[in-house]
């Protein structure tokens, strides 16, 4: 009988977080050395890996564009990933929508015009799912693209937000997602531009604005974390290139990336 209580009387969410706290976040670059770039990201129990192949010569002649690169997204959800234990197929509506959202997010950000007549393939593997699929997919893809050295206008960082009565909450778990109206926002933190808003439910415009702003702010916080990971990785690479010699750390500009 016990009904799920998204926010208890002590202002705590069902997993012990406060409304504006994000879940434990970790990211790793070059998880799949066979790909041109790869990254694995986890938000709490949600774990997603993205692999980037390309830019490479387009296989599919029909879709080749002579002024820019074609971006392909492929999604694979491990059958054991989600709450519902079933095979997700490529034809699955939700998976297809997810792929389309990721594509729509990155097409305007990747400098595709630098690679005419080629294609960039992005494979997303969902290993474990506890809410925030879209944000994890986008964040992993960003890092994988960085890892592959594909030039982008800006980092894309993404975060979900939900609303319980009048309280906005960030980074929803599966349990929260299924009970609350929610949005996922993808932002270019440097410019503050928003590239994607995906909403599951209709919302009051005032409330939406509040949630939206918070998700953007949260996105910037995540971007800081992603930055660190990339810098660590760059340091390791630099050290490897310099034969392990110590490097002047101050030389790295935070905003180089």
């Amino acid at each position, binding site marked *: 009988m016990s009904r799920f209580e998204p926010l208890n009387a002590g*202002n705590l969410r069902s997993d*012990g977080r406060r409304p504006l706290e994000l*879940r434990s976040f970790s990211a790793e670059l070059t998880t799949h050395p066979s790909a041109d770039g790869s990254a694995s990201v986890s938000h709490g129990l949600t774990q997603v890996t993205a692999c980037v192949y390309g830019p490479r010569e387009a296989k599919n002649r029909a879709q080749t564009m002579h002024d820019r690169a074609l971006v392909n997204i492929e999604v694979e959800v491990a059958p054991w990933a989600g709450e519902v*234990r079933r095979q997700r197929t490529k034809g699955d509506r939700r998976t297809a929508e997810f792929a389309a959202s990721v594509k729509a997010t990155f097409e305007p950000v990747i400098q595709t015009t630098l690679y005419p007549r080629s294609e960039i393939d992005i494979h997303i593997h969902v290993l474990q799912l506890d809410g925030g699929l879209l944000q994890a997919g986008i964040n992993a893809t960003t890092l994988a693209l960085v890892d592959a050295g594909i030039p982008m206008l800006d980092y894309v960082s993404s975060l979900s937000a939900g*609303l319980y009565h009048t309280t906005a909450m*960030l980074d929803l778990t599966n349990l929260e997602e299924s009970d609350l109206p929610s949005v996922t926002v993808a932002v270019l933190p440097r410019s503050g531009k928003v590239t994607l808003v995906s909403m599951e439910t209709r919302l*009051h415009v005032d409330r939406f604005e509040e949630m939206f702003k918070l998700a953007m702010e949260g996105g910037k*916080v995540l971007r800081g974390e992603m930055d660190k990971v990339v810098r660590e990785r760059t340091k390791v690479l630099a050290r490897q290139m310099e034969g392990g010699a110590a490097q002047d750390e101050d030389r790295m500009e935070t905003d180089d990336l």
Partner: protein
Amino acid sequence: MVEITIRKRQREEEIQPQKKFFRKTRKGRVIKVLRERYLRDDIGCGVRLCPICASPPFTGQSPSLPVQGTPHPSFPAGHHLLPDTNALLHQIDLFEHPSFQSSLILLQTVMDEVRHRSLPLYNRVRNLVRNADEWVKGGAWVFWNEFREETAVGRKEGESANDMNDRAIRTAAAWYASHIGLAHAASSPAPTVLLLTDDTASRQLASALSIPALSVRAYVAGLPNANELGDVLAAPGRVEDKEATERRAIYDEYLPAGTLDAGVAGGKLYEGRFNPNQYNYLEGFINSAALVRPILVIGRRDLNRAVAGDLVVVELYPESEWKAPGDEVVDQDLTLAADDADDSDGEEGGEAEHRLAAQEERDARDVGKRNPLEKHPTGRVVGIRKRNWRAYICHLDPSTLSSSATTSQSQQVVFATPVSPNLPRIRLRTRQAPQLVHQKIVVSIDKWDVDSRYPEGHFVRALGQVGSKEAEQESLLLEWEVPYRAFGRAILDCLPKEGDAWVVPPKTEDSIVWRDREDLREMIICSIDPPGCQDIDDALHARRLPNGNIEAGVHIADVSHFVLPDNAMDTEAAARGTTVYLVDKRIDMLPSLLGTNLCSLRAHVERLAFSVIWELTPEAKIINVRFTKSVIASKAAFTYKEAQTRKDNLALTDPVSESIRLLNALAKKLRAARMAAGALNLASPEVRIQMESPESSDPVDVEQKEQLETNSLVEEFMLLANISVAAKIQETFPQTAVLRRHQPPPASNFELLEDVLLKRKGMKLDISSSGALANSLDTCVIADEPDFNILVRIMATRCMRPAEYFCAGSVSRETFGHYGLASPIYTHFTSPIRRFADVLVHRQLAAAINYTPLHASLHSRQHMERILNGVNRRHRMAQNASRASLEFFVAVALKGRAEREGAPAREKAFIIRAFRNGVAVFVSKLGLEGLVTFKREINFDPELYSVKVPSATGEVTLSVFDEVDVEISIEKDVNTQRGRVIE
């Protein structure tokens, strides 16, 4: 700007999610559930000014526990009380008691378990916390132990969930002791944190960790007010009851939960709510979704401790053993008079009951054979899915007090008899028996063991003298769970700050109130209501248009302008669901400033309204309809009678009278069209209590309500408005629109009524459609007996299902229909002051016409379903409470009449049911139902629904639908009125 942070997971939980388990869904799919948990160091202990938890971030609660806890003779430095789950669940009445003053620490673990076990109890605990200052003088604090680093525990290998929770409780108790110790280091000695548990093993484990622990009884015994508090303690559990094991079982043990699950899933067992027979507490029905006819359960043994409202599991007997419901009125007061409360196995007691049961058994089969229509699938209760025990209003049975005990203050065991006749008597221990004898009291059931004939419970509180209006009123509010507390501060703060000085602001360009509102102040609008109506929520107008058509409008108080979604007032209104009308009191859904003032469409006052305006042809065909927020100024507030007079006096040609005539003409046509479509004209007993004077609440007499043309006028336009609005919101919000439906009754519901009508009166009911039913009801008339037709309609109404609110997206489109009104779609829009569903509908309609955006909560179907379920329940309860109140006042009025006239009241009545030892009668003039039982041997014919009674002049045959004179006597403190047939 707000601070957004990322939580780091605890190291040991880095790899493994906190919880990972597989769950099987109802459809049999396996689901993997992942949960993680973030542990924190900012969970406060709740002690005021705690130096360690000095500046906790906002937590939603402010620390309320006194620094020194509360005084206790055994703990000189003071103490805080930390109850475990069972202590809290079973002794909630103790904690709620006004004289209970200890400071309470409620652990999250405990709260979660309570919620899992009983939602109503959980809500009571939450109220306890919310009102900590008001109720529990020592304060109450919820400690979120499962999220604090030091107190969170994880499941150990092989540990049961219960054991883990108990360990969590001990861990938290130990943490509290050391935390409070640290906080007190320099100053005074630290108060004790006392674990309260009735589990002996738990106390032993606690003492091993040097955590002070006591049983509830031992704890209360040490309090200065032990005598007073001792009474509200729940009956001792089995563990402490040594004798229990030696007693003989009277009932069968319930089957294990797994067996029940499998049985129900496999179609071998049936699940449903238990409904006792109102005439016989020893039998009842279970409505199972899997069977068309309700399942009959007869006899104490087969009922197996089921109490009204419990969700039970039944096993069916083979069809050869199916029976008919009893044809005897069984009154437990009479049959059990000799039963001794202290004699707990009840073996000797209930002699009369044994005899009865045996005869019942024989007869049930006999009746079943003779009248197969009455035969039901019959079974026995083999398990309880969920108890639905609540607080019951009772009186102490004086006969169960031993003569020496009537003055004694020593603890004794007595029977409490619930006022509701179909509940078992409750055995309880009290030291206050002599004081309670003539009081109405609230009693809770604690348990019902296999070796105890009766459930065991405890005294909660006394309401007052039996028969006193205050006690009766409060008891019926409690009995029907009507929330009647005064509106709290937070709720009143949601009202306009101008209070009753609030007026519609002047019409200006930039006025927010006037934005998108039509100015209808000049329109000739009037209201028509019952006399003395204070909450006028509707007004009407009609006028001829130049093109020969008629414009008609319904204007409803714009309640949603004042009641905003999701604030304290809205939440309270949703919880109340409806205003409850008692004969001499109204329990408002909204604060009276709104209901009887700002939202009441009084005459000559500017008020905000939500208007539905139609263009109709003179034949009442709708040309178009529009909806708009408006400002109106009603020109007159009529009673039905005044409006009728006005309409009938053709000399009056003022616009208001003309408008009423126009409305009336349209209403007649609308009604005719509705009837032609098959709408039912159903009846319910409508009586009115006449009061001596408007100020006093002493009823003088009872009269039947008069129905005027103008009643029907208002009704027709309200129906029309509701239907128009329903269509509009359904179209705009197909998922979440709030609608109301009335499902067609299953044919089997009518079988008995059809048979009786045919056999007794040669009348036929055609139930093939609502139209056919309406027509055949019209033919059920007896010359010179206008009441007979009303009676048949009342009985037909009882065969119907109740109407209900639902969410448009929750059921299939084909089942939207309203059977009684013969409308394909319907909702409630016209009474937002007194019904919460209407408030929701107003919000949806406002969004549908783009007046305001729809609030987020109204987009969630789950949320809407939750609210509507609550509103449906409240609605039922409110109706019951109103009826009970009416019955009480009718009884008082009759008593008064009898005293004035020096003889018991006599009325004409119809027999509506025959039993082996009596008949049930319906007094239509009073809207009362009563029982007439015969002490003499009578001859009962179940086939012909009649009894033959020997009398001075020979034998008299009494059959269903016969009219008889009854003498009505009122029994003190019994809900059913009993009478004596004179002839």
